[in-house]
């Protein structure tokens, strides 16, 4: 139990706890390693449709109570902090606006970059705490030659969540801990069971934490209704400009989408392009989804630009993407052109392009164009 924490500034850590098994085990492991741990649950959203008691929403009362129970068990303080304002502005508003212009946003990336490693870090500093920790499967390693901190994939290759952390800076990494980075998901659950953590059996959550039924179409449509913004209907065309059908709003589509197109042409077709200016959705065959290149903007290089005028890296364009070898050409401080050795499928504006050298994450950015 911390009393005057300015006496014990060393070895204090703030753990972001969602009430799930990963963040709970994170807190437990850090405590065992001798850190003075403080558990924090972020209140990010209000109930949607009165759903505060849902099991999955990231700050439902149930989840916060679980986090608290774990902290009580570990004998560490637990607080709930209110970040609803920041979350609305940086995550929810961005999510909504991106869909309106035909992009497919990545709210988890935004939450990490603009919430967990911003106001939460400010909170950490206000409380005079040294480190911040999360349950991400990623590794933060110090390069002893350069003296800088680097972000690496988690040991569990399948579970690796480094993809979502491309927005972090080396400076932020210098006070960040990822205790689960060296473990597999299986090992984490085993630890949680051994420690008899009440959250050992909490199910995985893959959904959008602020949309309880995960239906982004309904969410965007609902907000458009509230804002009295009429969905603009437009055309679904083929790659050669042939009219197929009308649609009731580009916000309902994403690149690579095959279902819910509202058309039947006798064979599988996929959304290959969304044009917010002409309000058009273009469909094509499976192979039409391939891109040989992309431009990414708002690029963050964790340890600076790796090489000029160009260098090689493996690029992921989706979370569950094996990664594509590519040539990267930085265009100024925060833009980059990526040329794939072999075409990549379903490159989607709005999603993140993340660049690796082996296990090391060099940086990432938001995809703005494909097939440049």
């Amino acid at each position, binding site marked *: 139990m911390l*009393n005057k924490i300015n006496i014990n500034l060393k070895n204090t850590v703030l753990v972001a706890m969602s009430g799930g098994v990963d963040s709970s085990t994170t807190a437990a492991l850090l405590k065992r390693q001798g850190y003075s741990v403080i558990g924090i*649950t972020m*209140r990010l959203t209000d109930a949607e449709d009165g759903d505060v008691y849902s099991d999955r929403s990231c*700050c439902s009362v149930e989840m*916060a109570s679980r986090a608290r129970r774990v902290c009580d068990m570990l004998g560490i303080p637990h607080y709930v902090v209110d970040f609803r304002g920041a979350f609305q502005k940086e995550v929810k508003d961005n999510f909504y606006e991106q869909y309106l212009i035909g992009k497919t946003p990545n709210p988890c990336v935004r939450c990490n970059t603009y919430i967990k490693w911003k106001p939460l870090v400010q*909170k950490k*500093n*206000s*409380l*005079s705490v040294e480190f911040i920790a999360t349950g991400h499967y990623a590794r933060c390693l110090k390069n002893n030659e350069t003296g800088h901190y680097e972000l690496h994939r988690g040991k569990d290759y399948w579970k690796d969540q480094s993809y979502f952390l491309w927005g972090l800076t080396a400076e932020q990494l210098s006070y960040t801990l990822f205790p689960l980075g060296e473990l597999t998901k299986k090992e984490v659950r085993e630890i949680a069971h051994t420690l008899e953590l009440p959250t050992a059996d909490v199910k995985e959550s893959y959904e959008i934490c602020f949309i309880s039924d995960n239906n982004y179409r309904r969410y965007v449509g609902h907000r458009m209704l509230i804002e009295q913004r009429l969905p603009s209907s437009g055309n679904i065309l083929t790659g050669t400009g042939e009219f197929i059908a009308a649609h009731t709003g580009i916000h309902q589509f994403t690149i690579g989408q095959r279902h819910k197109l509202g058309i039947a042409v006798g064979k599988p077709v996929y959304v290959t392009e969304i044009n917010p200016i002409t309000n058009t959705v273009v469909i094509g065959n499976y192979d039409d989804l391939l891109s040989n290149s992309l431009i990414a903007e708002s690029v963050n290089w964790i340890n600076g630009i790796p090489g000029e005028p160009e260098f090689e890296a493996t690029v992921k364009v989706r979370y569950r993407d094996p990664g594509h070898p590519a040539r990267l050409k930085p265009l100024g401080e925060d833009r980059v052109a990526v040329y794939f050795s072999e075409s990549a499928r379903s490159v989607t504006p709005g999603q993140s392009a993340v660049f690796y050298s082996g296990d090391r994450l060099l940086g990432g950015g938001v995809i703005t164009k494909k097939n440049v």
Partner: protein
Amino acid sequence: MERVYLDYGASTPVDKRVLEAMIPYFREKFGNPSSIHIFGREAKVGLERARESIAHLIHAQPEELFFTSGGTEADNWGIIGYCLQNREVGNNIITSCVEHYAVLNSCKYLETQGFSVTYLPAEPDGTVDLDRLKKAITPKTLLVSIMHVNNEIGIINDINAIGAITREHGTVFHTDAVQGFGKIPINVRQMNIDLLSISGHKLYAPKGIGALYVRKGIHLQKLLHGGSNERNWRSGTENVASAVGLGASAAFCKTEMEQEADALRKLRNYFWAEIQKNIPDVRLNGALEPRLPGNLNVSFKSADGESILLSLDLYGIAASAGSACESGSIELTHVIKALNPPLEYAQSAIRFTIGRWTTRTEIDYTISALKEIIERVRKFERKT
């Protein structure tokens, strides 16, 4: 310093003497007060003595006092019970924006039952303006509910004057006296109070016990139906031990109240002086007087209230801000909002409530902690 408790407004430790008075009613005098045998009668005696001692403190008759499960039930019963029972008298209720949620939400409930509610604003000093009240009363007003002492900012309303106004206009006057009972003098006869809510755990008595004073002649609809306990006004076997505790606490207050109020006021004023001396850009929420002797509610310019509270906890100091919602985070309170503070002070109203066992040493420790905390929070989390 291990722990410093400065949140007496939220709850209080049970006074040792109160606990001693209660114990026999767990062990030997455990009977049901409604039973005819000696066990029941002994329990009943304890219950009635407690009732007398509480009634005595507010100059009421013991028959005008009913035990409840706490202040919230008393508020609910007094307001909802009175209005539903007396619909033919009128359908308008007047209350203030800065009442406790037990009062506000009882009124909100009555709005769904066809009543209209007028919410009076608070003045910048935190009180309810009497002219506004006078103007708001209509022939359809059947109840005025205005709290005696505000739980957040400790401001004391002039319930004497309010009682005069309601008496003049023939409306019934309820007051939530949860924070003031036993701490500052109340006289229901002089002050023309018709209904009054009391809570045990704010007054060194246990949680789970409260009382409602109901002036003779006033009828309430029953909220709890069942046996004929509390003269058939409120069913349910009485919480005898806790009632005895509340009664004992009231008895001690009768003799110690004035002296304790003086001591607390002095210590509170010292606290406020030290804050002003050591920390720049601070603001008192509500006027310093008339205020509950133990209450201090302060805002710190450009500092995040949540971080201040969390930091205080990490230093072992307990204070409060706003109302904790169910998930545990802090919200800007309706009371502070109603005072309309300047924007850069709005996010950091911290309530310190000192009490019976607060020492000067604890205050001094808190000042030194606060100094460090405010400096740090202002550095790392500059708000507007």
